[in-house]
C-alpha cells in the first residue's frame, strides 16, 4: 500500500493560485501531480480549473495544460492519445473536467471516447453544480440541494455517472474523494498502468456552492462517505469492488445519520422530513444497485 512517505515533494500546484479558500479542485490537482508527475498533459475544459491556473503568461500549475472548449475535452485528449504511437509521444493525456463538462455539455464526447476505448484518463471533479458561473444546478446536483437555478431545492436526483461509465465496459472506472488522497493517487497510478479508457469520478465538496465553512472541505467530503452518500469503489474489466473506507458502510447500521451530512451544508437548509426520507431512499437505492454488481 502506498504511504505518504512515498509521494513526491514537488509542488504541482504553486502558491498564489486563484482558487477560492477551501477549494477541493486545487487539492485534487495536487494529487494528480503527485500521482503522475511530469508526464501529464492536463486537458481542461471550461470550469473552475480554467481560472485556478491564474493569468498568463504565468500559471499556477506546474504541469502541461491544454485549455479547451467546454464540450470537447474527451475528444481533444483522444486526438493526443491516438498519435502517441505514430509520433513517439510519451505524455499521458488526463482530462480534468467538472460535472458540467462531464455529465452534461461534454457527455457525448465522453461517451464517444469511452466507446472507442481511447487510451486516456478522464477525471470528473464533481462539485455537484456549475460553480464557475455561480452555483447553477447540473445533472450531478443531488436531490433537494439549493442552487441559483433550483432555489426551492432540486427536484431530480443525481445522475449515476460512474455506473453509466461502467456500463460502457471500459477497462477501468473508479470513484474517489478528495478526503482520501492515497486512495485517489493509487487509483490514478493504476489507471496509468492500464491501456484504454479510464474514468475516475472525484467527489469534491465546494464550500462556496454547498454553503459550508472553507475550513471544512475535507470534513464534508469524509462525511459524505460516512453517511453513505458517496461510495468509494472501482471496477477493473467490469469487476466491481467496494474500496475502504466505504467497505464498512455496506452494513447500513454502521453509516452515520445522513442529517449530519445535510446539516453542515447550507444548500440543504429547510428540507422537511419527507424530503430527507427521499434522500435516504436514494442513498439506499444506490447501495443496492452497486452491491448487486459486486
Amino acid at each position: 500500500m502506498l504511504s505518504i512517505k512515498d509521494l513526491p515533494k514537488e509542488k504541482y500546484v504553486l502558491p498564489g493560485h486563484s482558487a477560492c479558500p477551501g477549494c477541493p479542485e486545487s487539492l485534487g490537482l495536487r494529487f494528480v501531480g503527485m500521482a503522475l508527475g511530469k508526464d501529464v498533459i492536463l486537458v481542461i475544459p471550461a470550469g473552475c480549473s480554467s481560472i485556478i491556473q491564474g493569468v498568463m503568461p504565468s500559471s499556477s500549475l506546474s504541469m502541461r495544460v491544454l485549455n479547451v472548449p467546454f464540450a470537447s475535452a474527451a475528444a481533444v485528449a483522444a486526438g493526443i492519445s491516438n498519435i502517441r504511437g505514430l509520433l513517439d509521444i510519451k505524455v499521458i493525456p488526463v482530462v480534468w473536467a467538472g460535472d458540467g463538462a462531464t455529465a452534461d455539455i461534454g457527455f457525448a464526447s465522453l461517451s464517444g471516447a469511452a466507446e472507442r476505448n481511447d487510451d486516456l484518463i478522464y477525471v470528473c471533479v464533481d462539485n455537484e453544480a456549475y460553480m464557475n458561473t455561480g452555483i447553477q444546478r447540473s445533472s450531478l446536483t443531488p436531490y433537494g440541494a439549493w442552487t441559483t437555478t433550483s432555489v426551492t431545492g432540486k427536484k431530480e436526483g443525481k445522475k449515476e455517472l460512474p455506473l453509466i461509465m461502467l456500463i460502457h465496459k471500459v477497462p477501468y472506472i473508479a470513484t474517489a474523494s478528495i478526503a482520501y488522497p492515497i486512495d485517489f493517487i493509487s487509483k490514478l497510478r493504476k489507471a496509468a498502468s492500464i491501456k484504454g479508457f479510464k474514468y475516475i469520478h472525484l467527489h469534491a465538496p465546494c464550500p462556496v456552492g454547498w454553503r459550508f465553512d472553507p475550513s471544512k472541505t475535507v470534513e464534508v467530503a469524509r462525511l459524505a462517505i460516512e453517511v453513505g452518500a458517496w461510495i468509494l469503489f472501482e471496477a477493473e474489466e467490469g469487476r466491481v469492488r467496494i474500496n475502504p473506507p466505504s467497505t464498512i458502510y455496506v452494513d447500513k447500521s454502521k453509516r452515520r445519520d445522513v442529517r449530519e451530512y445535510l446539516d453542515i451544508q447550507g444548500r440543504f437548509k429547510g428540507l422537511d422530513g419527507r424530503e430527507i426520507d427521499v434522500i435516504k431512499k436514494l442513498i439506499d437505492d444506490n447501495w443496492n444497485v452497486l452491491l448487486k454488481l459486486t
Partner: protein
Amino acid sequence: MTIKVLTGNYAVAEAVKLSGVNLITAYPITPQTPIVEKLSEYVDLGLIKASFVRVESEFSALAVAYGASICGARSFTATSSHGLLYMHEMLWWVAGSRVPLVMAVVTRAIGPPWNIWDEHTDLLDQRDTGWLISFAEDNQEVLDTIIQLYRITEDPRVYLPGILGLDGFLLSHTSEPVDIPDEHIIKSFLKPRSQPYTLCGDELITMGNLPRARDAMFMRYDIHLSMERAKRVIKEVDLEYSKLVGRSYGGLVECYRCENSKYLLVGMGAWVGNMKDVCDELRDEGYSVGVLKVRFFRPFPYEEVVGHLSGIRGALVFDRSISLGSLGHLHLEILARASSIGKHTIIKGLIAGLAGVDVGVKEIKESTIKFINEIEELGYVKDSSEWLL
C-alpha cells in the same frame, strides 16, 4: 504523373493520401461522406500510414484533429453544412491556438427545410473564425489546393488552419479527369510538419489560460497580420507548385480574359467554370467581358480585386450565399473597397443558386446581358443587388 477520373470527394482523398498526414478524423454527412469512406479504406488497407479516428460528431472530429495537431501531427478532417456549424466553436479554438490544420468543406445548404444541395453560406458562415478559406473551381483544383494548403498553413509566416471549399454534388459527386502528381514530388514540396509549438514535448507549456485584455487583443492582431502575410505565401506556394507540377491558379485570384475587359463577372467556386463559358460566348458576340475568380476569400485579396475592378465600367458579383438582412458575402467584401475601386465602376450583386437552385450558362448569360445593356442604355443600374429567383 497519373490521370484518373475522380469525383471531387475522391480528389480530396487522393490529395490527403499524398500529403503525409498522421491523423484523419471525420463524421459522415452528405455530400462529404465518400471522403470519409475512401480515407477510412486507405488507412485500413495500409495505403496511408495514419491514425483514423471514427468520432461520434463533427464537433469531436475537429477536437480530435486539434488534440493531435497541437502535439505535432499533420491532421485532416472534412465536413458539410450542419456538421460545419456544429463544429463552429472548435474552429475558433483551432485558429486562436495557431494550429496548422487542413479541412475540406463540401458546401451544402443549411436547414430547415432539410436540404442536401449546394450553397456557399455554410462555409462563409465561418468567415470570421481566423481560418484561411478557399474555393475550388474543378476537381483538379480541389486536389492541388488541398496539397498547397498544407504548405501554406504550416508556413511560419502563417501558422493558421485552412479550409478548401468544394461545391456539393457539382464537384463532390461529378467525375472529371484529374492529374495526380507523383508522390516524391509532393513529398519534396511539403516539407516536414512545422508548427509554432507543441504541447507534448519536454517543456511544460500552458495553452489558453486567462489573458490580460491587451495581450488577448494583441493575439487577435497577430492573427490579422498573419492573414495579411498569408497573401504573399499563397502566391509563392502557387508559383512553386506550378514549377513542380505544371499548374498555377494565380494565387489569390484568377483573371480569365479580363485584360482590357469593360465588364467583369466575379465569383467563387464551381460556377466560375460556367462564367468562363459565358465569357467565351459573349466575346464571340462582341461583348467586352472577362471573369475574375476569387480563389481565396480569407485572406480577402483586396489589392487584386481593386486592381482588376478599377477603371472598368461594371462588375457583376455572383453570390451563392447570403448574409440575411444584408447582401451576399462576396458582394459585401467588394463594396467594402468600393471607394478604392472608384465611382466609374458600377458594382451589382446577384444572389443566385441558393438551396441548390440550378444556375447554368443560360442564367448567367441572361443576367450578364441584362446588366451590360442597362448600363449601356441608362448609365447606371436600377437595382444594385438582386435575387435571381
